[in-house]
């Protein structure tokens, strides 16, 4: 379990990183926190000729406010996101989901951008980012572009980040005052989600006015439970089960060692109900 040999470069600016990426072409691989890439390299499932480490690139790390938006640098660690007062106040769903990622060691090394671009359908951060209607800032040779989360996740481990491009930041519209909960179903605490539900709701006097729900590991990409969202609008926060019963509609969950697809569909409805209730409560 040793990677095959590769050239290692550590650019200090986005421009240099893009140049290194352009030079490497198909043989380049971007290293963020390394929590997924290193195992892949060690198992020789991938053998890039050049690894471009973003760890020293200026300006990719940190969390700031920009009007109605929270901007999180792609290289911000999970631990920083989970404990950020800004995120907790304005995008509580992301803070809560991030606190559930793997274990403390991984949360201190892994990054939000790395997890999002890796786009593992069992990863915990796609669903909240999707639910929060985030925008992804992508830098490339032609400059910067922005892609909505709903258009970002294209397939299993595939995103809108093209060849020669980098995800530099995640912009999240403020959801100040929204209740939030991430309901993660696992058999052992540090495991990838078997199913996860990211729910954030705006409730006024016990009535849900708006709900946004993202599903983890219910298909090849993170999914929105759109029919549940619609059904919840105007519902009492204390009676959400019926509205959540369609959570698995339109999903295509995998069958694997942790559960078959039917069980995942069942879990999705149960966990959505629990997540929404918890979100409405706080």
């Amino acid at each position, binding site marked *: 379990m*040793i990677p095959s040999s590769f050239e290692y470069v550590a650019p200090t600016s986005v421009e240099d990183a893009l140049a290194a990426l352009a030079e490497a072409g198909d043989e380049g691989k971007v290293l963020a926190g390394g929590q997924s890439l290193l195992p892949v390299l060690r198992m020789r499932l991938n053998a890039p000729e050049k690894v471009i480490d973003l760890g020293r690139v200026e300006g990719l790390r940190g969390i700031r406010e920009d009007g109605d938006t929270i901007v999180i640098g792609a290289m911000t660690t999970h631990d920083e996101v989970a404990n950020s007062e800004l995120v907790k106040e304005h995008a509580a769903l992301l803070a809560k989901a991030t606190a559930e990622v793997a274990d403390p060691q991984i949360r201190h090394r892994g990054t939000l951008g790395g997890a999002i671009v890796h786009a593992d359908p069992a990863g915990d951060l796609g669903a909240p980012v999707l639910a929060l209607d985030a925008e992804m800032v992508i830098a490339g040779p032609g400059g910067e572009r922005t892609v909505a989360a709903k258009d970002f996740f294209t397939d299993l481990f595939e995103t809108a980040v093209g060849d020669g491009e980098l995800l530099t930041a995640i912009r999240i519209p403020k959801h100040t005052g929204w209740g939030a909960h991430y309901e993660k179903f696992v*058999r*052992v605490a540090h495991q990838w989600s078997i199913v996860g539900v990211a729910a954030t709701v705006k409730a006024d006097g016990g009535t849900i006015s708006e709900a946004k729900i993202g599903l983890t590991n219910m298909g090849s990409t993170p999914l929105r439970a759109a029919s549940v969202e619609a059904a919840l609008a105007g519902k009492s926060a204390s009676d959400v089960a019926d509205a959540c019963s369609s959570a698995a509609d339109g999903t295509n969950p995998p069958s694997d060692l942790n559960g078959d697809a039917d069980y995942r569909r069942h*879990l999705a409805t149960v966990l959505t109900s629990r997540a929404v209730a918890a979100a409405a409560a706080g």
Partner: protein
Amino acid sequence: MTTRSIGHSVQRREDPRLVTGNGRYLDDLGRDALAAAFVRSPHAHATITGIDITDAWEVDGVEAIYTFEDLDELMARPLPVLIPHPALTHPRTCLALADTEVNHVGEPVVMVVARDRYVAEDAAARIVVSYETKPVVVGVAAAREAALAVHDDVPDNVAAHLIQEVGDVDAALACSPHRLTIPLTIERSACMPMEGKGVYAVWDRDDASMRMWSSTQTSTGVRAAVAARLGIPLARIQCMAPDVGGGFGVKINHPWPEELLVPWAARALGRPVKWAEDRREHFVSSAHERQQLQEVEVGFDDDGRILALDVKVWHDNGAYTPYGIIVPIITATQLLGPYKPGTYRCEFWSLYTNTVIVTPYRGAGRPQGVFAMERTMDAIAAFLGKDRTEVRSTNFILPQDMPYDHGLMFQDGRPLKYDSGDFPASLAKLKALVGWDDFAAYREQAEAEGRKVGLGIGCYVEGTGVGPYEGGHVHVETSGQVFVATGLTSQGQGHETAFAQIVADELGVRFEDVHVTTGDTRRMPYAVGTFASRAAVMSGNAVAAAAKVVREKALRIAADALEANPDDLEIEDGVISVKGAPDTQISLSTVAVLSNPLRYAFDDAAKAATQFAGTFDPDKPPVAEGDEPGLEGKGFYSPTQATFANGMHAAIVETDPVTAEIRILRYCVVHDCGVMINPLIVEGQVHGGVAQGVGGALYERMAYDESGQLLNASFMDFLVPYASEVPFIETDHLETPSPLNPLGIKGAGEAGTIPVSAVLASAIEDAEGFPILSMPISPSELWELRRQRASAAAHSATTEGDR
């Protein structure tokens, strides 16, 4: 007065070293050694049609590439069948490197030796092995069906077939008032020590001798095996087990191909060579255990007394049988637990599959046997509507029945004869600990809250401390410090502490002054190994015997020096004095000086033993005839049979009515390993064992696909419980000393693991109200079982309606 050390919870002295990163594991040795890497079969069953190593030689730093053709005659032989047995009619073992055929994914085919592991793996990746794949046999059901063969010359995939019967089972079944048939399944799991296997060898060309280190449970076994295959006299090879990061059974099998190839390459190249197994290798090229299909037929009376027990076991032994049929033999014999059925028959088939070999894993066949027996007990109780503990009590062997001979042959080839235990007392303690009689009220309360809870129980008896022997060597140096060696190895059990406690007590010295070495053939060349919960029983009694020898010699020398009768002397804290006259004394360090007559004084203390010191009688030889210089002694312990520890566990689980999650609310253990040398260590063993048992019951499973690929060969997918999943464990102990050894001890190493699957199945069954016949069980599977039950119930309701 010296306080006795045995029986006290002395803190483990190895822990500061191990928990601060100062352990010395295999891969900490040999920094500059050449590194080995292996090309392993990617196929479960294939013929090798060609090996092309040309490209690999292009990698800078490659020192050697070996295939089967490079092996000399001794090395080219199949690996030994370590434990032959008359019923093992078709033993098969692998070659050190595969020749024409591979029989499981992970089997080594080519060895690369290079400057470092990076280079070795780069070169290995360039080697092209051509295969013609063959149909594969995966899973014990396919092996039993025998539509395909793993080994062409083994009919029906049967490595061994054994029947043991006591009494006339068929007749007893025929006249039993009630009969039940129960089909059961247990899946594959594995030991998964934190440190994988590893070997490091240094060949001294000038001295023609080998020093090697292996992360093994038997350094004497490895030494002998390597000597045989390399054609080296034993006198020219030494093997040491350094700190070993867990074994749990997998490191008792030997020699592994790598254990032969690394020293062989070190000799061929004249350079130190090292190989440290990585996790992926450990998954596919070490060993697994547990998978069995079982069929129990039981006949019993109205009280639940078993009149006939007829068990069939189909045991998956993987691709080869280097460790013989120890595991299914243990299943077949230890299945009986604390019970005495009227008649008993166990028939097993040990079957080949194209998967990783099966060798003992903590519990070693017992978890499966206990699962069969305890599921049967619960089934009888359910059938008769009786309390589950009542049915068990009805079948208990009683204290007055001890020693109890089952009439069967155990894994050591000796009678299965229990030496001790008080099962009714253990059960009473367990019922009190878990609150057995109060559970109905608790369940009622939980149900009112919409919760599902269940209570489970499991009992076992474990044959521990099997022979043939272990030895101890005790040496008091002139500093007064005591150095103890025993040949079996340590994998974290706390031997440095426990054996020091024993020697301190036996010799009369302070615990702090006793230093223990294990698993070093330079210090103790006669040993068997650490397995079968035997270290405390075997080496514990051996070092005690050695300490007695030293004590007697010390008293004899002191008696001469003090002009006293040896019988009037006592040793406390390293000082020998006349009883009742404590001022007449001599230290053990002075006795050590006097024990070794000297010509040369190398320090002040030594002067007393030199020729002009006037210490020795000039009319006698300095070393008396028949005596030896030095204050040291050896002792061996070799029992006629195993000693039998026992235990009973109970658990309360909660199953989520919606998601089918399984939570362990309480886990209670009553444990009897006789006299406890160190209760803290025993508790630790029980806790670790239960944790491993929980893994086997709820999480771990080797998931092979139909082509024989292991789908979850990493810790990403193979789930082991962490601290977050292991319940708080409540323990109570019963000490029924073994009459078979002077210290009265029985083994404790495997105990915690053995009944956990049975206990949790019992508890889940109690919560759910339907039989649990297969373990491990996941929430998904439990949910599926519920769904099947619901659908069957709906179907039967419809059918009823149609009538």
